[in-house]
């Protein structure tokens, strides 16, 4: 007997979370027992401005379908100004990805504070839904890294 396996698409999401706000926000979402998909893999960074554009491309190369960067709200950065720089950088990078024809919805920046566990969960739910609709990342993939 043959079993037809139906493979449901589960996106791989990489979330870069700043240590001081968003990572704590994710923690709060956990302690509050709020649901968000397990497809989100969190990478803790000291500050949102630690995220090099190369990190984002690398994540896509290694099979991510979406990358989200979470940091403190502008003005609340632990290091005073890190997220302002990140904001400029990411704006330009996303605009460039769009210019090259790569779906712009695959990348996102959200500001999540340590007190916003609910916002973290809601953001992740929404982002995973967007990426699931978009499907697999085909335009910025590296075939050598595919299973």
């Amino acid at each position, binding site marked *: 007997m043959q079993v037809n396996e139906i493979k449901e698409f589960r996106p791989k999401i990489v979330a870069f979370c700043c240590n001081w706000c968003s990572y704590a926000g994710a923690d709060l979402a956990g302690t509050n027992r709020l649901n968000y998909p397990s497809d989100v893999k969190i990478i803790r960074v000291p500050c949102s401005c630690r995220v090099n554009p190369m990190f984002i*491309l690398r994540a896509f190369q290694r099979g991510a379908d979406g990358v989200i960067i979470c940091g403190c709200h502008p*003005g609340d950065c632990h290091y005073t100004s890190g997220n302002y720089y990140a*904001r*400029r950088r990411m*704006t*330009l990078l996303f605009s*460039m990805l769009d*210019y090259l*024809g790569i779906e712009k919805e695959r990348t996102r920046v959200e500001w999540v504070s340590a007190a916003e566990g609910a916002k973290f969960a809601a953001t992740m739910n929404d982002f995973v839904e967007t990426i699931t609709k978009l499907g697999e990342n085909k335009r910025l993939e590296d075939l050598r890294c595919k299973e």
Partner: protein
Amino acid sequence: MQRIMAEKAKELLQNGTVNRVLGWKKGEFVYDITPAVFNNTEEIDAEFVYDDFCANNLSKYLIKESRKEGKVLVFLKPCDTYSFNQLLKEHRIWRDHVYAVGIPCDGKIDLDCLKKQDIQGIVGIETQNDNFIIHTLYGDHTIAKEDALAERCLNCKSKKHVIYDELIGRDGEVLDSHRFDMVEKIEAMTPDERFAFWRGEFSRCIRCNACRNVCPACSCENCVFDNPKSGIANKAAADSFEENMFHIIRAFHVAGRCTDCGECSRVCPQNIPLHLLNRKFIKDINEFYGTYQAGEDTESRAPLNIYNTEDVEPSIVYKKGGNH
């Protein structure tokens, strides 16, 4: 012009202001120009040249030249002065060791344009009003300037020298160029068209690194792409991702510092329009953070090194950015 420049170089060499000259010399063919350092007046008499083929931006060579002993004389076209200024701002050039002479420029010839029109065996060139007269082994060709000039010269951003010690000829003005027209055209495409367009361009990339090596903004001593562990240090791209990665990251590394001199597109052996990536960043920076021209001065801070609390959010890209 070549004669005036050679005289000036010889004069400064003889009175001891400088002890060498950075300029252009003829290669095997008349159109085959290479940057060169001349150490004495005899060398200048023998090999110094300046004509419509001298497209190289000499400012990057000053990084190494200015670190040597004594002063170096350099000839800078208007767009080269922007790169020179930008490198000064980044403390890459020792200003005390450089004597910069501004020279006028009416645009440089793109050899590919001539090739396309089947002009071969070039032995000389002359300018006559709005035309070039190109002497070849097979007779003379008269060709309109706009058919022979490089794209970057047709859309010249400025004829003004932003820095010099001495000027030959008259200084020009900052021009009102149409250099962003092509960027706008690409932005107006659908994402699928844009992706197809860039895939078509990038897929020709042979990773020769010429764009990086010639770029005055790419002056890092240790480049990220030379790291053997980067996984993208291969000569031949093994996957389309490598090409995307290389060009996105390279453009990003010079964002806010690129003066739009257009050398990257000039040297690309595969004719990939790399300047369109840099211009996209320049255009975005102008739109989001206010008009900024890298290399215009040595005081202002690069747009990615400063911030404003009222900056736009990255989500502006979803609202704006082209068709869907």
